[in-house]
């Protein structure tokens, strides 16, 4: 390496570097134990890529390399005082410049042969420091012993002390000669010395300065220059002595033309993080012009304090995830407290899932006249019915989870409640306009001389009073959204086994959901008649014409079960509950376990996962009942039970991976489901990635079978209809990536082929005229990315997708209409001034052939400028033209300006 460097320096010295030189003023002397600081000033206009300093004890053959640190105009090399020797120090500097030239000091033919020299004086003795007996230096040889820990001169915490050095670069060491001394005490026997590494973890160490010395010799008995260094041990501090902060401010302004509409958006973001020793504070703020009082908020603000990983408190907007059955990443505005003591954890979340929205910003967005409900009173005066709409209730969330984590087990219980506040939406609102038209009134084609037009509530009231009419405007039970109430209770349990390589976990949950809480909680009397019509003190009791209780009645004593009013704060029980009875009492008597497991409002899973060196597997059974609801995770699919088994084998040092997965899914949770829809999914994949700069291959195969359990045709009226489904979808994917070079250009060629085909397994047994509607498709795409020796990159992409859409003709025959898309894209980027300015550009082409042929041409370009350290500006623009058989015109266009400052 050194030889190459010398040759490079010699070569570069042949080239005149006009005006470039290194200025270095040698210090007069150095002293052992005192750091030697050597400054050098480069006098050049050319950017410096790398600056190195080299030093050695005089007489040694090898140099130690240090990276110079820039301090203003100076570049500094600091040699630890403990590494100096009375023999003196030889040193030189080497700078690599951006134009490929090298500057060296001293400016001689070979600075390594003719380095600077500085004399070194013996160590000052203050009488307090312990004097270490020095070995004989005269016959020692220098060796590159690398100090791993602690760094010389560093200050470390009592808890983090480990003394380690590497003899990786030292050859022929006699291991038996190695001696490790800490503050003069020989600790060699307590140290681990193996494979060229010396590691020692002291049990106790006093605070203050510590000195380490390693002595060793070669196999032929020559002493190696001892390595000595010192460091400071400090006490643990409770004072936040270190304060760090960082963050970013971003502003964005964009204007897009879509059709004939301009969409202008501006946004301002601030993110900041402050770290002190025991706390971490994060602040996020976003203000956007898209914020709209008629929709859910888009502005964001949050304040997050994390104390030593044990307590995490969040205020404002946050996205917590407890589990899929309660809250799973949905935004909450409120407070979250997470106390995690490792063996015990409490998570509490209180906040708002939806903010109240009074109306939509459009005509009939708050009120609407129910024309078909117009009536007259006994004096033939009109009664107009008005309704509220376009509103959203404030939805409040409360969630608490307790969990224990002991030994290899964990156990958790949780409770979640989400409820709409019926008082958060006002009956009378300002600014709401609704349309009044006699055509809407079904009672009479006249509005009693009320002119057609747009009215506010007050304007309509005045108009109605003029015709001696009245307005019927209910205070609740509007036709818009109904207020909901929802609770979820659950538990989870888990265990790790086989030295943490295998994990079992189980979770069970049950929900209660009320679809309409306008009328609040039911009384005992309402409870009595919830399942039958008789107020008789018995629930679900039916009578025959003679007044005798019919067979099959449950006869539950109304007074024997809980009073719904007592639990109103937990859950509002009334006739709109789902389920009305969580457990089927009849089925419970015969099959209690099965009844509990298959409760329509329960959700649970069992999962066993293994994580071994070459093998990772998961076996899972999951069931979510048809009536399980969590308002905090409304996207959870219910009415599904599934069994999954998957395995990933890693072979050839993770270069070859085999994936297998089988999943069975159906909706037969309730015994009443006679014809469940069954889905079987089998997939197999091979990924072979030999390593960087070699071709890689991916092959995936997937088979999806669907069967709706129907065996016979159905009769609809007089006609037999075939509703049976038994289909198979085969999805295959192949990808190859081939990196190659042409001259000094590096390329990456990628080819993807994806095919999807469907087969009707009952094709030979269909009624005449049956139409199998599934479409086959095929996609082929290729991309060539090229990296040039210039700071230029380009990507060229071509792809074609074709879909065969089946069409049934009037005579019942089937033909296929092919829809195809062909796209060509190219993009490139070029950097100037050492990446301070970057220009990007791209062209795109998309052509569609089918029923409505269309062609889109587009281009985009952008520039990115590094204005200051940490401040960047971006300006991008795009334009897309659209050509159809009839016309050619602008499809979309837009510009975006963004300014970002990182601090």
């Amino acid at each position, binding site marked *: 390496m050194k030889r190459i460097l010398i040759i490079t320096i010699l070569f570069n010295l042949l080239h005149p570097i006009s005006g470039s030189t290194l200025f270095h003023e040698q210090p007069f002397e150095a002293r052992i134990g005192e750091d030697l600081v050597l400054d050098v000033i480069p006098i050049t206009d050319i950017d410096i890529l790398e600056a190195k300093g080299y030093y050695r004890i005089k007489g040694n053959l090898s140099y130690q*390399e240090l990276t110079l640190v820039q301090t203003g105009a100076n570049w500094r090399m600091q040699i630890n005082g403990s590494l100096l020797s009375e023999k003196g120090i030889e040193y030189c500097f080497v700078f690599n410049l951006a134009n490929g030239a090298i500057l060296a000091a001293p400016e001689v033919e070979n600075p390594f042969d003719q380095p600077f020299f500085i004399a070194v004086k013996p160590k000052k003795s203050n009488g307090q420091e312990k004097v270490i007996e020095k070995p004989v230096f005269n016959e020692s040889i220098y060796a590159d012993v*690398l100090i*791993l*820990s602690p760094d010389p001169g560093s*200050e470390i915490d009592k808890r*983090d002390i*480990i003394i*380690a050095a*590497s003899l*990786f*670069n030292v050859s022929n060491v006699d291991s038996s000669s190695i001696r490790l001394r800490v503050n003069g005490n020989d600790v060699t026997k307590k140290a*681990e010395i*193996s*494979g*060229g*590494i010396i*590691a020692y*973890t002291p049990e106790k160490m006093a605070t203050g300065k510590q000195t380490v010395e390693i002595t060793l010799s070669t196999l032929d008995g020559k002493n190696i220059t001892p390595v000595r260094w010192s460091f400071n041990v400090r*006490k*643990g*501090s409770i*004072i*936040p*002595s*270190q304060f760090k902060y*960082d963050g*970013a401010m*971003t502003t964005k302004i964009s204007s897009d033309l879509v059709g004939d509409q301009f969409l202008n958006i501006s946004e301002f973001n601030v*993110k*900041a*993080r402050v*770290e002190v*020793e025991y706390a971490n504070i994060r602040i*996020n703020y976003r203000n956007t012009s898209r914020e709209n009082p008629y929709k859910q908020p888009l502005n964001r603000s949050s304040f997050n304090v994390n104390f030593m*990983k044990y307590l995490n408190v969040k205020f404002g907007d946050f996205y917590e995830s407890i589990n899929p059955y309660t809250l799973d990443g949905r935004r909450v505005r409120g407070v979250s407290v997470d106390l995690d003591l*490792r063996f015990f954890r409490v998570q509490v979340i209180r906040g708002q899932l939806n903010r109240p929205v009074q109306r939509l910003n459009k005509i009939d967005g708050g009120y609407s006249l129910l024309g078909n409900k117009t009536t007259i009173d006994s004096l033939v005066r009109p009664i107009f019915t008005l309704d509220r709409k376009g509103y959203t209730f404030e939805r409040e969330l409360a969630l608490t989870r307790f969990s224990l984590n002991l030994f290899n087990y964990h156990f958790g219980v949780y409770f979640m409640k989400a409820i709409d506040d019926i008082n958060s939406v006002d009956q009378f609102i300002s600014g709401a306009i609704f349309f009044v038209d006699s055509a809407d009134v079904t009672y009479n084609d006249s509005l009693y001389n009320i002119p057609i037009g747009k009215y506010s509530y007050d304007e309509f009231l005045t108009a109605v009073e003029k015709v001696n009419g009245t307005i019927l405007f209910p205070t609740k039970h509007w036709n818009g959204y109904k207020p909901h109430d929802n609770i979820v209770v659950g538990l989870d349990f888990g265990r790790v086994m*086989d*030295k*943490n390589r295998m994990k079992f976990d189980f979770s069970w949950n049950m929900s209660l959901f009320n679809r309409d809480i306008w009328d609040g909680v039911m009384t005992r009397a309402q409870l009595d008649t919830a399942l039958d019509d008789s107020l008789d003190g018995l629930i679900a009791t039916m009578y025959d014409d003679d007044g005798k209780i019919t067979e099959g009645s449950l006869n539950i004593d109304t007074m024997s079960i809980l009073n719904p009013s007592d639990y109103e704060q937990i859950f509002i029980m009334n006739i709109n509950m789902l389920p009305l009875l969580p457990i089927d009492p009849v089925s419970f008597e015969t099959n209690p376990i099965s009844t509990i497991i298959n409760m329509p409002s329960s959700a649970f899973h069992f999962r066993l996962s293994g*994580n071994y060196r070459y093998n*990772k597997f998961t076996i899972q059974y999951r069931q979510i009942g048809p009536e399980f609801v969590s308002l905090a995770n409304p996207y959870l699919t219910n009415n599904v039970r599934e069994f999954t088994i998957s395995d990933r084998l890693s072979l050839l040092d*993770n270069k070859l*991976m085999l994936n297998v997965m089988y999943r069975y899914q159906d909706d037969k949770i309730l015994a009443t489901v006679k014809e469940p829809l069954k889905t079987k999914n089998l997939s197999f994949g091979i*990924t072979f*990635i030999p*390593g*960087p700069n070699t071709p890689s291959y991916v092959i995936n195969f997937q088979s999806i079978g669907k069967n709706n359990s129907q065996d016979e045709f159905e009769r609809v009226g007089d006609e037999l209809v075939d509703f049976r489904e038994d289909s198979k979808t085969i999805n295959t994917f192949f*990808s190859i*990536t*081939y*990196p190659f070079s042409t001259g000094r250009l590096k390329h*990456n*060629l*990628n080819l*993807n082929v994806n095919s999807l085909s469907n087969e009707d397994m009952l094709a030979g047994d269909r009624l005449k005229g049956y139409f199998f509607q599934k479409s086959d498709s095929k996609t082929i795409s290729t991309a060539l*990315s090229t990296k040039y020796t210039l700071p230029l990159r380009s*990507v060229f992409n071509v792809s074609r997708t074709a879909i065969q859409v089946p069409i049934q003709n009037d005579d019942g025959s089937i033909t296929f209409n092919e829809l195809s898309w062909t796209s060509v894209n190219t993009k490139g980027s070029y950097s100037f001034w050492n*990446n301070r300015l970057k220009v990007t550009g791209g062209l795109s082409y998309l052509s569609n052939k089918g029923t409505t042929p269309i062609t889109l041409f587009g281009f985009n370009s952008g520039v990115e400028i590094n204005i200051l350290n940490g401040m*960047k500006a971006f300006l991008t623009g795009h334009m897309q033209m659209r050509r159809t058989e009839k016309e050619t015109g602008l499809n979309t266009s837009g510009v975006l300006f963004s300014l970002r400052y*990182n601090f």
Partner: protein
Amino acid sequence: MKILKHIFIGFIITLLIAPLQSASKIAVTTKVSGKVSIEAVGNSGFSKLKTGTILSDGDRIKTGADGFVVFIYIDDKSMIKVKEKTEIMVKGTRTTGSISKQINIDIGTLRAQVNKQRKGDFVVQSPTSVASVKGTDFWMIINPDFGDILIGLEGLVNLTNLLSGESTDVGAGMTGTSSMDGSVDLSETNPDDIPDDPDSGSPAGTQIEIELEGPDGEIKTLLIDIQ
């Protein structure tokens, strides 16, 4: 034919003996906190990892929910910090004067602080991506379900998606993402996304310094040592 037979026997013997050979020592742990376990190459099962443990080529390290470990390669002091809920395999091939280093990471978060005077190659490989290190300091976050995130702190790192072959250079202040669909994207780093480094921010001192002004204007400094 006889030669082929000997070669075949030799090959089989080599395969059988290879696992018995001691793996080369390449790194040493300098900090371990929380639950951290190691499956030493050649051994079956995980055991507790301690500070000062010498790591060999092929050792697997797993951190628990509160686990954190720092280790240093012995040729150039390149430092790897492994955060909680992470699984890695430490790899390194000793060559003359350097160690060709590789970290295989299946899931989790790590920070690589590669010494500026680095020796040998340095590669971080996940099931989705390969990060070939040209720079000095970066975070890598691996999620088997979504892909990889590489946050450049200093220098330059080449991030290559193994499924598509697409690659990008990630510089300081930039974030590269490599997804399961084969795409590779580059964007400005959101400071909020940078993981906390439990090993940074160690206190520099243990004293509180309070300046007191006397009645005649003289300044006196009160130093309080924290025990």
